[in-house]
């Protein structure tokens, strides 16, 4: 009985102790090593001349500030060598994510989908199974036109699906790691 009474008295004390106890510690900010902040598509004309750069950059990841998109103008009836660079700029030093994609080439593929522009794309690289990756590509422009170009990176697609090796995204499935759209003008 005595003990019970003591317990009863202890309850409010316990409550006060709870309610005035210390603040929650600061969380540890995670090291976002997987995030991709930047996609840079560099198109170099085969006949020489200055390269055209298309870039999608979102240094703080999803949310926060809006991404910065750099579009470019291309010359008509020209063949360009395209190279894709992926960066994670949240880390110091900056991490080159495209190396990771190259290391897991059998599990990745880029797709180039023009809309409204006269341009054709060809892959210029291959994984261990002989299927394309897309880090290196060729773009051939036709007559002057304007429209968009969507670049998609799929993770774990079916790279043997019908049309996949020629760049048709329809049947490949997988998860989208990147999907960016640029405005393109062919002059």
């Amino acid at each position, binding site marked *: 009985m005595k003990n019970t009474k003591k317990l009863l008295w202890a309850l409010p004390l316990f409550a006060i102790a709870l309610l005035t106890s210390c603040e*929650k510690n600061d969380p540890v*900010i995670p090291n976002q090593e997987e995030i991709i902040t930047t996609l840079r598509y560099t198109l170099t004309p085969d006949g020489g001349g200055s390269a055209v750069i298309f870039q999608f950059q979102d240094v703080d990841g999803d949310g926060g500030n809006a991404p910065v998109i750099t579009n470019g103008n291309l010359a008509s009836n020209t063949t360009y060598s395209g190279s894709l660079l992926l960066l994670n700029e949240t880390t110091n030093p900056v991490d080159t994510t495209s190396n990771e994609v190259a290391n897991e080439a059998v599990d990745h593929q880029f797709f180039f989908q023009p809309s409204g522009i006269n341009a054709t794309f060809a892959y210029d690289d291959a994984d261990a199974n002989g299927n394309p990756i897309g880090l290196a590509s060729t773009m051939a422009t036709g007559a002057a036109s304007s429209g968009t170009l969507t670049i998609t990176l799929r993770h774990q697609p079916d790279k043997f699906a019908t049309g996949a090796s020629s760049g048709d995204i329809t049947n490949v499935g997988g998860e*989208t790691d990147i999907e*960016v759209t640029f405005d393109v003008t062919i002059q």
Partner: protein
Amino acid sequence: MIQRWISGMLPSFTKEGCPKGTGWFLFSVFLFPFSGFGQNCSLSISGSLADEGTGIPMAYGTVYVEELQSGVAADSSGNFRLTNLCKGSYHLRFNHIGCETHTVFIDLKKDTTIAISMHHHNELVDEVVVHDHHSQQETAASTTINQETITEEANKDLSEMLQQMTGVSSLRTGAGVSKPVVHGLTGNRVAVLNNGVAQSGQQWGNDHAPEIDPYVAEHISVVKGASALAYPGNSLGSVVLIEPSEIANDPHLHGNVNYVFQTNGLGHTLNARLEKYAKWAAWRVSATAKVFGDRSAPDYYLTNTGKREYDVAAQLEKHISSKWEMKFYYSLFNTEIGILRGSHIGNLTDLQEAIGRDVPFFTKDTFSYKINAPHQTVQHHLAKLQSRHIFNEHQTLRLTYAAQVNNRKEFDIRRGDRSNTPALSLLLWDQFLESVYDHFFEHDRKLKTGIQLRITDNTNNPETGILPLIPDYRAYRAGAFAIFQEQKGHVLYELGARYDLTDLQVVAISSSLPREIERHYHVFNNYSLSAGMRWQVLPQLKLNLDMGHVLRSPQVNELYSNGLHQGVSGIELGNPNLKSERSSKVVLTADWNVRKKLFVQVLGYYQYVQDFIYLQPESEFRLTIRGAFPLYSYHQTDATLIGTDVLASYEPIESIRLMVKYSFLQGDDVRNHKPLVYMPSNNLFGSFAYTFKDGKKMKNSSVSINGRYVFKQNHLNADQDIMPVPNGYFLLGANLGTSFKLKKATLRCSLRGENLLNTRYRDYLNRQRYFSDDLGWNVSAQIGVTF
């Protein structure tokens, strides 16, 4: 015979306010041995049965003596008397309609009087089906699921078991994850009480199932009323109770071993339970192991839907003196659940490609037990210590301390070797302290008061390398309640009030650079009021009216979510300006019993929720490097939920039972004049059961066939879903079961078939209906020994 019966003694030991109690004190039995000249075979056991909740005598219960294979019935005052007994050991089994079976062991040396308090399920909440004789079919139809059903269906998870009650549905994520929906509300709005302690996990997630092994429970019940004020938690009224029984006063070792095999997913479930009322303390241990492989839809395997689960629980009870009892409980729940590979998507384009496919992406044509990403692992520990003090005949005090630790990790398909690194990793701990004081007054009046304190602490583990979806937080809650009950003639009244103070500290990481720590503080003052009445209008008609006004404070996910929610392929934004939801609910139940052949229960409810919190799609899209994502944010509106649950059961002759159940529910957003999303479809269930006469060895043999029709959810606008609402569907099921009486044990065998027509269907409340068909046919075979 001298009746040394002190009627006042009984309530003081046994009244616990069930089913609003914590589930620990289901039965209390006290023996008052007589001194006298007991001759061999002229001894007697007499006593009476009373309702544990109210202390009111319970008429016409039965007492069965296992050793003699015979029994007697109690009279209209609940008194019974067994005579001409020999000296020796007896196991007595007490039954009363609407109650759990209760077993008592007596080592009979002289004439003995005992007081039995039965755990009755009807106390100002909804009603239990009552027919003359007890079979598991009828309890399954009620708001309570008993131990036999829990054991027979041990391969199901908690929410799937609850689904067989009218008015309860399951919100599912594929085959392995389901959470209960009671009268249209789920998640944070339904409190789940495991052994009297509010389950404290990551309840906010639609793909987070309650971390409870139902096998520990003696019964599982759902309180669908509006007045569950004694329960801690943050519900809008409805409460799910998982209640282990008190260990029977029996010095022998008893237990149960149970095995279930199921064809769909080639699943194995093994359970074991042992208990003994030893001299040093009463103890019980139980364990469950479940292993399932890929489930299958009618036409294909659901790749990566396997599951593993390993659970243990231990219970200790010690009567230190006649005035002091101590109880300890510990349980560990441990699971790993695969998520359908074809439901994992990167962005909106992937979602559009994946939805409505005939066969999901990544479907393999071979069966496997292997679980790959995406999958989730959860460990949940619960430890509880309870001390009960009986001051005198009328006053008892119960002190409870409980601690919980919940560790959840969710794994996605990630680049590099990161699929082995969780994409979500949360560690939550929770401490709970409660003091409940019961006072019984004269004239069947009872007052129950209590205070509750709770701290919940949630921390994101930075191992994920991903900014967290919900921030770290710590919540302090203090609550106090009082409930008054009075029985006046045929009417039982109940009044209750509750106050809760919540102090929430949120520590978030900014979404813009440079990353900064943002601290937010919220204080919520919530009160709740309830009133109820149970009126036995006629012997065959009973009415229940239950009204409640409850406030629920917004949860952390509703206030501060920030990020991509993979499952819905959308970005969810919390709203720090949310206010508490205010719910008013009225529940009216009528139970009508015609000559014990026809039983009809009609339950109607109306709930109005002011400032109902919901997720609304925004008109803008958020541009990310993975494409444009729809943006969802939390808003408040006013909602109404109107529904009815009907149950009718008919027994033309004792061996045949027909049953029909129907649930109707309509949810509306009255501020914006549109339906509420994710409301359960109306459904109709019918069954026909035939019970065989007990043979010498074979008992409780029955065969039944059942059908469930789930209507299409028509109460929804076309623009409220990304895919047309699935059609209605019909599922056929069947059960077959029998028990064999062995020397000192009972062997139970049963077969249960589900979706026997192998119907192709998709359910509106299954979040994976966008990607795949629901489960195909399944047969479960169960064998169990109880000794």
